[in-house]
Every structure is written in C-alpha cells, then in structure tokens.
C-alpha cells in the first residue's frame, strides 16, 4: 500500500455571500489541489460562513492551500485543526435491505455503534450514524452483508477542542 499523505482539516471563515463557495472551489481546481470533503455552514454570525475542508498533502502543499485561501478577498481567517486539537465528525445515512426478521439484529449492531434507526419500511431500514471516519467505516463494513441499497455521507465537520 502506498504511503498515504497526511490528512489535514482546514477551517476557513468566509463571507456568507453568493459566489464565495465557487471562488474557493475554483481555487482548489486551478491550483491542482484535491478536496476530499467540504462542508459549508453559517457561523454564529450570519455575515460569515465556515468552510471545513479535508485535504491530503505534504506540508508544503497544505501551506500553499492555506495561504491561497487567506489571500482571497472574501476570506476572514484560515486555520488548520491539528489532529490532537480537533474533534471531527462525519455523518452517514445508510439505507439497508432489511427483512423484518433481521431488524433486531441490526438494532443491536446500531446500539453498539450508537447509530440511530432513522426510518423503517417493510423492506428497508435507514440508519443514521455520526462519528469519526474509522467508526463509520467499521459500521459500514459490518452492515454491508445486510445489503446496502444506498449510502449518503456528509462532508466532515470539525471544531477546535475547548481550552
């Protein structure tokens, strides 16, 4: 397996205005940086949005990305959340093929992972799970034999730990 470059999480506060997301995204593509995941949402102040961007790369690339983001006129501040100082969460919704007889089995599994059953129909069950990436991937691995019909994952969000 090739050595994986370190995953970095960059958190940027930007103007909450049309066109700003396009500006950030086109910066990444124009410079040849690959976004692994991107999440945008309003901050506590509606003038500003927070973008949480997961990227992989060596330190030089990450430094360039940070500086390029900072340079955008719409960017208020850019920070990197280091692995030890951040809490990160992924969110996934997983729709599984689920005959009624196996529902209990699935609920036990969901309990162990603190996942939640979001919806049940005659043939399907939809489970909601949040947590770090490893946890979600472990759950997906164990749920796979039931038959995954569809899975939707949200971009990563992360926050700096409190002092």
């Amino acid at each position, binding site marked *: 397996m090739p050595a994986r470059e370190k995953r970095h999480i960059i958190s940027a506060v*930007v*103007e909450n205005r*049309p*066109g700003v997301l*396009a*500006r950030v995204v*086109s*910066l990444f593509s*124009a410079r040849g940086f690959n976004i692994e995941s991107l999440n945008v949402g309003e901050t506590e102040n509606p003038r500003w949005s927070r973008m949480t961007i997961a990227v992989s790369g060596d330190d*030089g690339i990450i*430094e*360039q990305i940070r*500086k*390029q983001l*900072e*340079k*955008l*006129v*719409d*960017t*208020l501040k850019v920070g990197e959340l280091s692995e030890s100082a951040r809490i990160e969460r992924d969110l996934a919704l997983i729709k599984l093929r689920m005959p009624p007889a196996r529902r209990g089995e699935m609920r036990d599994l969901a309990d162990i992972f603190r996942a939640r059953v979001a919806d049940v129909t005659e043939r399907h069950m939809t489970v909601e799970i949040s947590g770090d990436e490893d946890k979600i991937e472990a759950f997906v691995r164990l749920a796979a034999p039931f038959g995954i019909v569809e899975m939707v994952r949200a971009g990563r969000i992360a926050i700096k730990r409190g002092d």
Partner: protein
Amino acid sequence: MLGTRVIIETLKREGVDLAFAYPGGQITPLFDEFYDERDIRLILPRHEQAGAHAADGYARATGKVGVVITTSGPGATNLATGIANAHLDSVPLVAITGQVPSPLIGNDAFQEVDVVGITRSISKHNYLVSSPGDLAFMLRAAFHIARSGRPGPVVVDIPSDVQRAEIARPIPDKIVLPSYQPNYEGNPRQIERIAGLINAASRPLLYVGGGVVGSEAADDLRLTAATAGLPAVASLMALGTLPFDDPLFLGMPGMHGTPAANRAIMNCDLLIAVGTRFDDRVTGKTESFAPLAKIIHIDVDPTSVAKNVRADLPVIGDAGNILRRLVPQLKKRERREWLEEIALWREESAALLGRQAASGLSAPRVVREMARLSRDLQPILVTDVGQHQMWAALHWEHRRPRGFISSGGLGTMGFGLPAAVGAQLGRPDSLVFCLSGDGGLQMNIQELCTVRRLDLPIKIVVINNGCLGMVRQWQEFFWGRRYSHVDLDDNPDFGRIAEAYGLRALAVNDGEGVSPALEEAIRHPGPVLVDVRVGKGDNVFPMVPPGEGLDRILLSAPPAAEGESASREAGAG
C-alpha cells in the same frame, strides 16, 4: 442619483481622469451619462482587448489604476486576455463591464456571459453588482483592492438596470473590508535577521522583482544596494529599478538573462529576493537554483513565498517599508574577492552583448540605437512579446522604473501597441517607443487607428523577420528544425498599412539605415512606424535551455541532433 452618475462620481473620487471604453448594448446607459462629462476623458480603442492592454500600459507608466469599460458578452470576453495579463504582472486595473438586466441573468440572454465566472481565476477579485445599493461600495472596494497589497485587476460587472436605477445611498467615504487586510509592515525581528544575514554574508546578491516597482521603492532599493555594497540582478518586471550602468548591476537573470546575472545566482551565498515570485523563466531547474545560497524572500503576497523555491527567511510586507527599516541596520563590508568576480563577469557579459550589436543589421543594434538617440527624452520602451522583447531587455539602457513596459508573466503577443497608447497618454512628455515583432504587431494592428485618432507621437519599431522568431528558435534548437507554422512570409507591407492609417512610415534594410531612420522618426512630431527587416535566422543569446539549471548557458545554436525523434523528445519537457 442615477446609477450611471454614481459610477462617474465614484470614478472621480478615485482620481480617475481617463478611461479606455468601448460602447455596446448593455453599457449604453453609462455612455449616455458620459456624453456631457468633462472631467473624465474616454479613449476609444478599436478592440476591447486593446482597451485592457492600454489601461494596463497606462497603469504601468504612471503607477495609477488603469480603467477599462466595455459592454457585456463579447465586450467582456474580449477583455479576458488583458485582465489575465494585468493579473500575472500585478498591475492595478479596474474593468467595468455592462451586464444584461438583472431579471434576465441566467437566461442565456442576448450578449450574456457569466463574467464573474469567466474572470474569477484571472483577476484579483470581481463583483457582480446585484443590488443598486451596493454599486458605489463595490466600485470603491474594487479600486482599493486593485491598488493595495499585491496590486491586480478587479472586475465590476454592472447589469444595465442597476446602471439605470435611482440610488439614494450616498457614496461611502470609507471602505472597510475586514476580510482583506494586506500586511505592509514586515516583522521587525525578521528585518533584524535580514540585516544580520546580509552583514555576515561573503557573497550576497540582491534579486529584484516587479514588486519594487509596484511599491515605488526603487530609491529605497538603490540605497539598500549602495549602503551594503550589494551586487544585484533584476527580473524583466524590475528592469530600471537599478541603472543599467551601475557597476554592481548585472542585468536580468534566467532563460535569456546575462551570464553575469546567472553566474552570480549560482555562486552567491545569500540571495535577497525582493518582490518577485521566482518565475520558472528566471529559476530554470529549481533544484539547482542558487545552490550555495540562503534565500531571503521579501514579498507583500504570502502565497508567493516558498511557492517555487524554498525560502530560508520569509518576510511578508511592503518592499519599501521593509527596505527603509533595513537600511540603517546594514554595514558596508569589504568583500573584495566577490566584487572582483562580479566585475569580471559583468565585463564579460557586456563584451558579449556588445558583439551582438557590433555590425550589420540586427535587433540588438536597433535597440541600442533607440536608447542612444533618446537619452535626453525621458524614453519609455514598450515591447510586445518574443525575440525582440528579450533583445530589448538585454540591450536597452534601463535607467528608471516604469521606463520599460513589457508583458512578463502572461507573455501576451499583441500587448505592445495598445500598451504604448496607454503609456503615451499617461506620460505625454515622454518619448514612447513601441518595439514590436511582425507577429505581435498584427495581433492588435487596428490600434494604429487609435494612435492616429489621438495623434500620439509614438515611434513604432517593428523587428520584422518574417516569422514567429521565438517559436522558430525553439524549433531550431529543440525540435529538430521542423519549422512548423512559424513562417510569416506573406506579411503585408507594414509601411503601406501604417500609411493607410495615416501614420508616417520608414523602412530599414541594412545596418547603415538604422540611425538615420530612427533619427528621422524621433524628429518627426507625429506617429511613425519603422519597418526593420532583419534576418529570419537571428536567435536570442544567451539562452538557458528550458528545464536546465542556470549554469547551462548556450551562446550559439546547439549542434543539430543526430536523430530527429531524439531531439523531439528533448524538447517535450
């Protein structure tokens, strides 16, 4: 106040007294408001791209913000090359484009394009004015952003209904952009460290970039060099910041740089880079660039630092501010051995370049004659792009900043003539030369009409070799002499074209004809085109082959490759 009046009053507030403007459907409201306007002069180019280049040349010649105004759709797309050109050379420019009325945006209306989308990656910033109340703020912000920090072009796209709206909100006095706060100061401790490194270095070298021109810091730079006794090299964008005849100035480094400048980079133990992004045309192979040196990098744009080349000591801030605080901390040191070497290299390079201009009809000779004959006329040399541009960089007598105007980063053929129009309008008392090639001239030849219309006394000198010389040179050296699509043998007679536009025309066919023709051109009070018919096979030397280190300098054509396929492979890099 009507939106169009808000635009004009805001332009005046920003000190604009001249703009390059081409009318069209969605900008007609603004042109109507200009009809009775006396304080801002509108200049009509004959193509929007030329309008952008003219605004660019005006900005480079004066240090002011250039302004170009066009309509939506094709008017705006024609600006794209000019905007990108200004962006790569950090030229302050504001481009105002008309846009289809707000309710039609997104409907593929007649002459509608997504201007903000198209210009996003080639401008410093851009705005679509979607609400009339934002108009004055966005325009003022555009000027502020264009001229501050690392300067650049800003686009303001204004739908025609916004132009026609009645706007109650007054023009704001102050523009505050919390998310845009360039750092000008430079960290005092870092500046102390620069002084420490310079004072301790045995073989220091200044590497000057266009940022020094943008920051109006040439005097500070000269003082820095003189105080510490530092030899210096200057990028294409910085030629003129140090006088060409200063014994410590070695010229331009890089692919077509002087051997002296390249040797100095390869041998220095400290490289002090000021306001430059380490373009690949300067560094050659980055792994072998300045191999013995610690690198100090001073730049107002943090993204330029450590992007192409490592920086041992990065200092973010304005060149002038930092140099002014650095000078008192510098000590003059003897460094006799280093300066002796520098003097020797300098002499060798001067002799080499002198030989290129010695006899016959050659572009180097033409450039030197232009310089000699215009010494007392505050000359500005505006170039196009290609071989003649490099000959100009190598042979012109660079004496002051803003005296040499050239498309560096984008390398835009067609830049020269319109940029000369802008430079002459910005500097009416200067003698403006436009040095062009037969390829580049034809990319904006319609501007001969603008020259004539305004009776600008520009001296257009065409280095006419009947081919796309720079590409031909690469094909000769690196592509097995397969001269693919570079022949311009069917060029028209440029003299007759110039005459048809109403210019005076002169032709030069041999070495003896150079001085008399240039003298006559300079003597003539109006615009002149001098068609100089040089040899097709003339090549620019020195040359560092692409992808090689700066120690690999060609002074003559490399021998023809044995197998054509092998040489094609070599050129592919």
